[in-house]
């Protein structure tokens, strides 16, 4: 494990973060935008775990942050999907272009 430098793990998490950003920019479907958000949260988790493992092996704080991020991501996905289902009932579509009543 020690032969792989920390920078290479950070390369993976940075690339995953920007892949998620790309999805968020190009997709117009709410479920796929939610998937992109999940990818972004995962890249943050990889960072926390790698820093904990490489820089502070005597502490566990990175693990706790990862656990709390996973919990909050689950709650966020559940609320987002409830909103999406409600939107589909009223608009028959989950495209962000079709939900513009509150657009200023």
């Amino acid at each position, binding site marked *: 494990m020690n*032969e792989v430098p920390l920078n290479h793990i950070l390369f993976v998490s940075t690339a995953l973060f920007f892949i998620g950003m790309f999805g968020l920019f190009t997709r*117009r479907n709410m*479920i796929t935008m939610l998937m992109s958000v*999940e*990818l972004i949260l*995962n890249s943050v988790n990889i960072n926390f775990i790698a820093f904990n493992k490489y820089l*502070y092996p005597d502490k566990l704080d990175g693990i706790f942050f990862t656990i709390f991020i996973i919990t909050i991501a689950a709650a966020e996905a559940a609320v987002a999907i*409830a909103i999406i289902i409600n939107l589909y009932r009223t608009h028959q579509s989950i495209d962000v272009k079709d939900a513009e009543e509150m657009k200023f």
Partner: protein
Amino acid sequence: MSASAIIFYLISAFILGAGLLAVTTRKIFRSAIWLLFSLIGVAGLYFWLEMEFIAAVQIIVYVGGIVVLIIFSIFLTQQSGNVMQKASASRLIFSILAVCIGFLLTYFLIYPYAFKPGSNAAIAVSVRNIGLQMLSASEHGYVLPFEVVSILLLAAMIGCIVIAMKIKPEEK
């Protein structure tokens, strides 16, 4: 290059390839399946980093919970075989530009930085140590965030039920 390093690069390529396919494929159901593979790859990366507990939590919550929820909502809201609209060319070009510039900027900030590896003796990342520290009320304990996040989960659960509840029109 040792076997461990080769495994790391294979897992990384798998994560990034599946993630890229998840955000570019035009069929929404395939997109969910590629997301599933990407999350499994991240769990593999945690196993490689010898964080077995986090890897198990990742598989249980993400793969077993969130992706299944997403697939259910795809079935509930539209046909799984539907092809999504292609993004317009200008949006595509500017997104690729923004993402590439952001990635290069971030990575060239990270790359020359010399991280100092931790010199203290490593402690075991066992479930026993994690549980003891998470529920301890001492200075480095995490019992307060634990309670706060439990309230958050309860609020999210009630909120989901209220938002997704169907109100019958004949009721007042």
